[in-house]
């Protein structure tokens, strides 16, 4: 037994780097949409509050986008360094999807991000708006391709293994594999919902402290509309995605439900301690027939059980079970916030209910937690496979890489990403504390052209 198990370390490393990375695109995909909305509103109404909002949120966008770029680059090489067997076997099927992501999304984002951030003085307002739209489109296209690749690993289709490598015979089947449409919708909505929570939360903070009143009201209103519309949509999409998983990855659903035996009339466990060794749950608190009702819409409906497969083919049940509950629990909290906001708006007291604002502030980072929990469910639930049912994780690892190298880089990632995250939060807090900059009178009255400052929020010296 070597001092380190290289494969376990590589799994920890990938779980850590990919979890770290996904936090940033989750915000930028949604925030890009909000920025398009703010700029469109400004161009249409010429109400400067929208411009102030744009300028404020684009700074947070830039900061977050930078983090996404550097942590994403790592992943595109980590596939090869740590998972060379996986790369060789799945490369012919997944490579082109990732290649298309680079070609159609990354270049588009990178090409127009410069104009979006620094082009205010260089291009006209319409062209600038176009740049914002293209960056937003780029983030969505990026999600499309990478989720197609991920979904293919969950529900492979359109390709067959020939001489140890996948050969694709139907690209449309590869891209639009069975779990892809629901996963794409579920994740994109997660992005927008997370962003709506961040926008409402930060605006609620300003409303509570009484700063930046008009700007904060407008953003709070927009954010709360987002939560009200997206939270119920997300619950519906999650349910559909779950039914899709039931069809294609029943053992993952068994782990989510903590259900060991395939049978009818399965309860929904609100609480349980799954014990994989004993193949049973401890301390169950359950709603009778709940699971059968949710999954089969029938109290007697059959729900798959983990014991259908050998222990070594089961995913780690506890992680999947609990991540699922964290995600669903938060989802219903988001729904509660959305409904409360809708009710307060209807009563005309949206900006006055202190506890609503406090609730919104407390949920600011919760969308990220729910998104990560959802990814834990789907990725850990796919184990022990990288390509579901076809390629095991232990066969995906790079055989020549030593445990010591993986351990060293893992420790470095922990330190470096920890430090980076600290710096990111520090500068983010700094931006939030300073808040949106009002347009200087000088800017709007004496020098109308300076509204398009070189950097949003930057008062540009006259040229």
């Amino acid at each position, binding site marked *: 037994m070597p001092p380190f198990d290289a494969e376990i370390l590589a799994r920890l490393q990938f779980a850590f780097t990919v979890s770290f990375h996904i936090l940033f695109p989750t915000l930028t995909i949604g925030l890009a949409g909000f920025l398009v909305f703010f700029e469109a509103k400004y161009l249409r109404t010429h109400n400067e509050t929208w411009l102030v909002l744009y300028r404020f949120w684009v700074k947070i966008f830039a900061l977050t986008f930078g*983090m996404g770029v550097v942590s994403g680059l790592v992943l595109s090489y980590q596939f090869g360094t740590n998972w060379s067997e996986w790369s060789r076997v799945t490369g012919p099927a997944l490579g082109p999807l990732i290649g298309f992501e680079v070609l159609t999304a990354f270049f588009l984002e990178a090409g127009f991000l410069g104009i979006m951030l620094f*082009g205010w003085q260089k291009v006209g307002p319409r062209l600038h708006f176009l740049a914002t739209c293209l960056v937003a489109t780029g983030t969505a296209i990026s999600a499309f391709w990478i989720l197609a690749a991920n979904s293919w690993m969950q529900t492979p289709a359109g390709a067959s293994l020939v001489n140890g490598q996948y050969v694709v015979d139907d690209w449309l089947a590869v891209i639009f594999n069975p779990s892809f449409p629901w996963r794409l919708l579920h994740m994109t909505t997660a992005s927008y919902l997370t962003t709506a929570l961040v926008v409402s939360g930060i605006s609620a903070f300003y409303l509570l402290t009484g700063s930046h009143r008009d700007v904060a009201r407008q953003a709070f209103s927009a954010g709360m509309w987002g939560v009200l519309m997206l939270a119920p949509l997300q619950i519906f999409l999650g349910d559909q995605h779950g039914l899709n998983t039931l069809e294609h990855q029943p053992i993952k659903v068994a782990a989510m439900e903590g259900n060991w035996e395939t049978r009818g009339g399965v309860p929904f466990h609100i609480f349980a301690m799954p014990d994989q060794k004993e193949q049973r749950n401890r301390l169950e608190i359950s709603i009778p027939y709940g699971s059968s009702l949710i999954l089969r819409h029938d109290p007697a409906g059959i729900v798959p059980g983990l014991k259908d497969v050998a222990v070594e083919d089961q995913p780690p049940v506890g992680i999947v079970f609990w991540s699922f509950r964290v995600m669903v629990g938060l989802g219903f909290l988001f729904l509660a916030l959305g409904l409360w906001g809708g009710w307060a708006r209807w009563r005309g007291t949206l900006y006055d209910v202190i506890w609503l604002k406090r609730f919104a502030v407390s949920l600011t980072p919760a969308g990220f937690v729910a998104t990560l929990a959802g990814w834990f469910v789907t990725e850990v639930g796919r184990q022990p496979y990288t390509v579901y049912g076809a390629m095991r994780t232990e066969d995906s690892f790079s055989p020549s890489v030593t445990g010591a190298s993986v351990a060293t880089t893992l420790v470095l990632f922990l330190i470096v990403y920890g430090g980076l995250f600290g710096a990111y939060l520090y500068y983010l807090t700094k931006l939030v504390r300073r808040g949106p900059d009002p347009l200087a009178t000088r800017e709007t009255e004496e020098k109308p052209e300076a509204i398009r400052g070189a950097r949003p929020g930057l008062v540009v010296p006259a040229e």
Partner: protein
Amino acid sequence: METLAIISGAVIGVAILMYVVLDGFDLGVGILFPFAPDEGARNTMINSVAPVWDGNETWLILGGGGLLVFFPIAYSIALPAFYIPVMAMLFALIFRGVTFEFRHQAHTSTHLWNRSFFWGSLIAAFMQGTLLGALVQGVEVEGVRYAGGMFDWLTPFSVLTGIGVVVGYGLLGATWLIYKTEGHVQDWARSSAVVLGGGTLIAMVAVSVMTPLLRPAIADRWFGGVNILYLSPIPLLTLAFAVSLFWSIFSKRELLPFLSSIGLFVLGFAGIAISLYPNIIPPSVAVWDAVATRSSIVFALAGVAVVLPMVLLYTVYAYSVFHGKASEHGGYAHHEHE
């Protein structure tokens, strides 16, 4: 299939060359960072690359992604073989990349991000050069897997190519700054370019002398039969670009030094490609041994043919929006609202 393999190889080659030239100059700006005359010059330097660095680095993802697309076997051999330099390069690029966003938010910690920008750029450049050298000297392969150790990449030759790339990127950075700056920053960039140009030429000569000594096959490629005649344009053109580099620096041209440096890089790259052909992982894996299946290549090449021209078009547009001299205050001014 052989034709497809060669076309695929050419696509990867173009992606890597684009990366080397484009990110080369902005990494070079980072390498020159601590030597800049003052903090104002550093602001100008970072502003000159801030709007374009992200697009430049995307070519690196295309290179890695492209290798996975077209040559999954080469990707799965090379990355474990170069585990340590690849990881070091990635960490370095992280530190460098976040500098663009963090530095201009910073007040008291600017010097910290200056250092992060310099070391990140320097280490990334050095590791890229080392990777190149390690590839040229050859990789031990058994079947479809890497069969060597974790430190096979580290040799005097790969250290030499590492230093060569650092100096070469420095030259690209310096000549880019000649083009994008004025006044005392431009004067400083000019004198830096002279030193770095000399260094680059020395490194190119050293690598050219050592490469044929690595393997008889490479020597035979260059000197066997009448090959030297066919290949003579490479050294001759290199000489011509070297002359035009120094002439244009001394005669105070602004764009020509940058173009000449790019010319030197293109020719150096061509020289390496000629030495390696038809191997993608020398000495034993040829492009057609490692190439992906037909359906993957056709699908990907169709995408490249449609999308890449559009990418090039709007990249040119994005550059043209930011044409002209970079200023100390435009773009990322690092202290807002003073």
